[in-house]
């Protein structure tokens, strides 16, 4: 899977609404040039057939999934190297580019799940990530238990964080009674966020 990061998106993510000085543009372009070699996106999902021991978010759903994606370890290893080499600005920009890619990988994965659901007659669905909106972080164990045979290369720490860090996981549900919708308003960075335009 080849996921592109556009220069404008990266600049916006690191705070720039106007074009920055040429020195920064040059570094941004160099970092974007590295992405293809540093990013190895892998993603997978599974339909959940069980009805027992479900996380509360999936209870009552007609169609249930768990999914995860990762960029692999190369990008964050390079970020660490850049910090160690005394190039923190470059490290920060590369890390931010990685965040953009993993977000896109998550959206692609969600698109694939929605396609699968649509083929089964479901149009409206909801996804949620452990640690957010009432889903305990412990649910990570349940998700990765379901995905265990897919060999995504993601490992959980004892506190349920994912390694590589540029990874994501979620639960998805279709049918049944859906509760809640996504809103930026609960975010602590709501007033300062540069991503809302």
């Amino acid at each position, binding site marked *: 899977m080849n996921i592109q990061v556009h220069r404008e998106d990266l600049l916006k993510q690191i705070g720039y609404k106007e074009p920055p000085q040429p020195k*920064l543009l040059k570094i941004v372009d160099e970092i974007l040039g590295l992405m293809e070699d540093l990013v190895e996106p892998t993603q997978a999902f599974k339909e959940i057939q069980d009805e027992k021991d479900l996380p509360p978010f999936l209870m009552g759903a007609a169609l249930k999934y768990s999914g995860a994606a990762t960029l692999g370890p190369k990008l964050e290893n390079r970020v660490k190297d850049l910090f160690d080499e005394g190039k923190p*600005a470059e490290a920060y920009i590369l890390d931010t580019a990685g965040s953009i890619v993993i977000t896109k990988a998550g959206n692609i994965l969600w698109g694939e799940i929605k396609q699968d659901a649509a083929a089964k007659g479901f149009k409206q669905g909801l996804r949620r990530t452990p640690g957010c909106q009432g889903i305990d972080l412990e649910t990570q164990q349940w998700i990765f238990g379901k995905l265990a045979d897919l060999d995504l290369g993601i490992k959980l720490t004892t506190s349920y964080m994912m390694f590589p860090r540029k990874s994501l996981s979620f639960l998805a549900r279709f049918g049944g009674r859906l509760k809640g919708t996504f809103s930026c308003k609960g975010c602590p960075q709501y007033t300062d966020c540069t991503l809302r335009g």
Partner: protein
Amino acid sequence: MDIIKEIYEAVMEGKVDEASSRVQQALDSKVEVNEILNKGLIAAMDVVGEKFGEGELFIPQVLWSAKAMQGGMNLLKPNFSSKDLAEKGTVVIGTAKGDIHDIGKNLVAIMLEGSGFKVADLGVDVTPERFVEKAVEIKADVIAMSALLTTTMQSMGEVMSLIQAKKLPFKVIIGGAPVDQAFCQEIGADAYGMDAADGLRKVKGFLGR
């Protein structure tokens, strides 16, 4: 242009090599070390921090400026007495227990070092006990903690409990996406750093410099 002004501008513009070469030039010309430090390096970094806070500069530029300042500081260090260095202050920094995210913490550490503080970076997934032990060991002035998740920020409260139970003198600053001023007050921390520049400003405020 006078050499102090050149140092100031090199740091402002994040010119790492130029800042170092101008500091060396100033030292060779027998310019007072404190003048290089205060009117050149620190004055520039203060303005960089202000401009960052006002949204005029962004993180990459601040980091370059911090690196430029750090390079200059390294050249000045042999010329300071040990008393001068100790007066800058010592900060123990780390990501709270259970959390492995370190970008924000690394940025704050670089800005603190760039401003002349001695920084002991404990890394990620740092237990409350480790924060306190290290701070006692190196006689730190400040403990700085970062967390990215609501589930891990709770351990910041445990650090405060340890400090209060042992009546230790450390100032504590916290930061990270889920943390805010209300949480800071709830656990009894001394300050909340909204971002890296705000954190730096507040650490300087604690230490009166």
